[in-house]
């Protein structure tokens, strides 16, 4: 006889313990900075359902995605088994639902198979992305789920033995019963065994419930709100902090959604597997960064002495780790729980910058930005020096109306390797009869990388001065060759007063080709080339197609690398990394990328669409002695072939 009272009692005790454990951990969220996202609830709910239902991000890692999908489906079905177990206690005449019994039985097999695969994945295949994850926790959870399912099946099996007749609706339990019947001396023994496994089933369920809040599998609870409350802002728009308080310096100062992020992490390591800094041997793994923050949050929530006083930047997370990030956004692109690593890292960088904690090289670069408006320490008057070798005068957009204002950017203006390409673009536009002008000495660095370094105040200064200069111009659109500049002009300047359409030069050139304004002949003659999607053009702003269309229209045979489009691998220059010492201990991201291109076989040109990529990949090719095999070309260089 199942004691309803006992069951109610232990359930209440377990639920209370679980709620208590969860509430302790979640309590800091109550005092976190506000971050409620109340907009478009229906869309958010729809997105959540699609993410869960289609497993879009999870299935990018095929085996793990299938395992997760199987466990989720089986888990949902087996919830009915739990309901059934409780119904039995409270309604003695309840006999279960035959219609669902067969599904439950099959779900049990599905669950156990998935767990078997998960163990195989974790213990035999051991993907590198699991490095640093808590294996013990994962194994405990897999063991607990197995226990829940096995005890359920055994309870059903002994019920069949005690009942004396097999059920066509429980094929798995029936098979088990057939195997176990010889071991049962009597019906009453079978009844006792049924009771034992019933309570073992209940105990494993309740044990799981109590264990859950302290486990990474807490994501089963907090993952739903976390995905629902994901940022819907454009990727390229860092949270504005101009009007916000100082960056969080302690874990309790995080926005509460940021804390929810930490509890949502499943330690799956997808972020780690795509992180260029991690691949280069730099001391950053987005996964362990989130885990370290979560551990500090848990310690703080549990009242561990001094945990709440440890500074986030330079304490919980080392400065070297924070400076290693290229802000390429690959981690956020892959995270199935939509955890926001990059804004968290930039926030901590802001604290470091406020304290002046940075390398001498980076400090000198920031001083250059402050004094000269560029990283090259060049006087403003030298900004248009690249135009001197052009056979025509580039108009000053402040003095005469132009169709396009060209926001040139630092590297395109000052770096000798890039300035040549800048002139190429100017010649192409001149040839197409495009009216364009530049800001001359009024242009300053757009501040995209400055902001991602964590120098928020300097970004605001640069942006305000640039916008004031842009607003003096009578131009219909803005274009730039620099994806970093494009990103902040498109996503961040509007909040500060810029009201202009901004395009990348690849889009502009493609439009001009399409409209017949830019005459060209397809001289690629089928030459095999590959194209690298710059992070700030592709993953940040979804602009993948114009460069590819140009390459194909020019007659080149384009072969994408395995990591292309939104999976593109960062060159290693973003987030201000180009202004820091290179401390890679393994393979530099740019060299890794060139090797990826070479592995395609018979690729002679590595086509890029970002000034920093020209510099990074030219150096990478020299470093790995591949100059005789592959060459870097900016898209505009392909026209030069004509």
């Amino acid at each position, binding site marked *: 006889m199942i004691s309803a009272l006992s069951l109610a009692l232990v359930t209440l005790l377990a639920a209370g313990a679980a709620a208590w454990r969860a509430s302790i951990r979640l309590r800091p969220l109550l005092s976190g900075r506000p971050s409620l996202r109340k907009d478009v609830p229906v869309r958010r709910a729809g997105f959540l359902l699609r993410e869960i239902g289609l497993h879009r991000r999870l299935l990018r890692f095929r085996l793990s995605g299938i395992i997760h999908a199987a466990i989720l489906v089986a888990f949902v079905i087996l919830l009915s088994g739990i309901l059934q177990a409780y119904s039995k206690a409270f309604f003695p005449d309840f006999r279960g639902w035959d219609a669902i019994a067969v599904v439950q039985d099959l779900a049990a097999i599905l669950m156990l198979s998935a767990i078997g695969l998960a163990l195989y994945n974790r213990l035999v295949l051991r993907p590198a992305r699991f490095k640093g994850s808590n294996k013990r926790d994962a194994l405990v959870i897999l063991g607990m789920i197995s226990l829940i399912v096995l005890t359920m099946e055994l309870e059903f099996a002994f019920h069949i033995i005690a009942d004396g007749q097999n059920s066509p609706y429980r094929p798995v339990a029936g098979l088990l019963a057939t195997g176990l019947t010889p071991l049962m001396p009597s019906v009453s023994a079978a009844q006792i065994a049924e009771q034992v496994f019933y309570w073992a089933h209940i105990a494993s369920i309740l044990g799981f419930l109590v264990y859950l809040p302290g486990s990474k599998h807490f994501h089963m609870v907090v993952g739903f709100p976390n995905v629902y409350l994901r940022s819907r802002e454009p990727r390229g728009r860092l949270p504005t902090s101009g009007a916000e308080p100082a960056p969080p310096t302690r874990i309790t100062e995080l926005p509460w959604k940021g804390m929810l992020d930490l509890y949502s992490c499943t330690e799956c390591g997808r972020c780690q597997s795509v992180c260029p800094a991690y691949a280069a041997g730099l001391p950053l793994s987005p996964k362990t960064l989130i885990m370290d923050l979560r551990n500090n949050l848990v310690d703080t929530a549990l009242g561990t002495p001094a945990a709440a006083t440890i500074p986030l930047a330079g304490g919980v997370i080392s400065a070297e780790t924070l400076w290693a990030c290229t802000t390429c956004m690959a981690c956020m692109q892959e995270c199935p729980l939509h955890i926001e690593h990059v804004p968290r890292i930039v926030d901590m960088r802001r604290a470091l910058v406020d304290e*002046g904690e940075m390398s001498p090289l980076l*400090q000198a670069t920031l001083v250059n930005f402050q004094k000269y408006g560029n990283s090259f320490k060049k006087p403003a*008057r*030298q900004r248009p020096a690249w135009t001197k070798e052009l056979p025509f005068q580039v108009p000053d957009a402040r003095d005469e109306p132009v169709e396009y204002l060209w926001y040139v950017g630092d590297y395109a203006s000052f770096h000798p390797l890039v300035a040549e390409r800048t002139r190429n673009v100017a010649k192409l536009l001149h040839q197409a009869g495009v009216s364009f002008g530049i800001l001359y000495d009024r242009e300053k660095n757009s501040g995209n990388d400055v902001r991602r370094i964590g*120098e*928020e*105040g*300097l970004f605001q*200064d640069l942006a305000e001065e640039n916008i004031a200069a842009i607003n003096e111009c009578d131009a219909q659109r803005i274009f730039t060759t620099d994806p970093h500049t494009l990103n902040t002009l498109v996503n961040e300047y509007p909040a500060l007063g810029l009201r202009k359409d901004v395009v990348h030069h690849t889009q502009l050139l493609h439009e001009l080709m399409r409209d017949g304004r830019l005459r060209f002949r397809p001289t690629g003659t089928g030459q095999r080339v590959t194209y690298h999607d710059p992070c700030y053009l592709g993953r940040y702003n979804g602009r993948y197609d114009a460069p590819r269309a140009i390459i194909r229209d020019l007659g080149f045979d384009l072969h994408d690398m395995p990591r292309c489009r939104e999976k593109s691998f960062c060159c290693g220059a973003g987030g201000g990394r180009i202004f820091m010492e290179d401390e890679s201990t393994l393979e530099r991201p740019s060299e890794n990328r060139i090797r990826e291109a070479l592995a395609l076989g018979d690729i002679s040109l590595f086509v890029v669409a970002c000034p920093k990529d020209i510099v990074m990949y030219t150096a990478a090719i020299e470093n790995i002695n591949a100059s005789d095999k592959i060459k870097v070309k900016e898209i505009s260089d392909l026209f030069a072939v004509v």
Partner: protein
Amino acid sequence: MNIVVILQTVPDSAEELTLADGVLDWDEAPLRLNEFDDHALEEAVLAKEEAGATVIALALESAGDRVLQTAVARGADRAVKLIKEVPLDASARMVAPLMAEAARKLGADLVVTGVQAPGDIFGQLAPFTAAELAWPLLGGAVGIDCSADAPIVAQEFGGGRSAQISVTLPAVVGVQAARRPPRYVSGSKLRQAVQSASIEKLDVAAELADEPGKLVTLHSPHKTTAISFLDDDPVTAVDQIVEIFRQRGIVGGGRG
């Protein structure tokens, strides 16, 4: 302890400088904070952090507010603008009486400033100010340790020798280099300082001193010795080294 840091602006050699009648056109020259004064300010702020001093940044009106606002963002407690008509190219000797009077008015116990300024050929504000104040002077400081009762100034000399000198206040110190690089002032702190820092104005009765001298000509240093580059080819380089040794009498000549 009140520490007055004198900050001067100098022409920015990284910018394009223009000449008028063969000399620098100061009106057109982009100016920046004198690098040595930057170090002096850092030392003053370090002293404040060590001993709780009050740091007062002092600059001529012509230096502009930004210099003083930056000083506040760096940790100065007060920013004082000296109101006086002073030519941009006024030498250290000329402005020393103004700075001395300002230091007295501000109740300075210690005056620190850069050991020199590249825009000023005489470039020695610290000794001239010390002379005006009749206070002791320590130049070429590479650190002012204020953690003890009396400040201890570090000086470095040739041959790796150094001195730690206990200073009786009041005094003037010319700083050559701070113990750590001048700290970075983030844009956020600077913006905050721009919005909130109040810049005090200080009138002084003192007049500019007479120009102590006039620059007539400048010469590059006379070449006395020169380095020799060896050939890239190691065999030729060895011959060259042997020849040098022979010429210097290090090895005997002729017998090889």
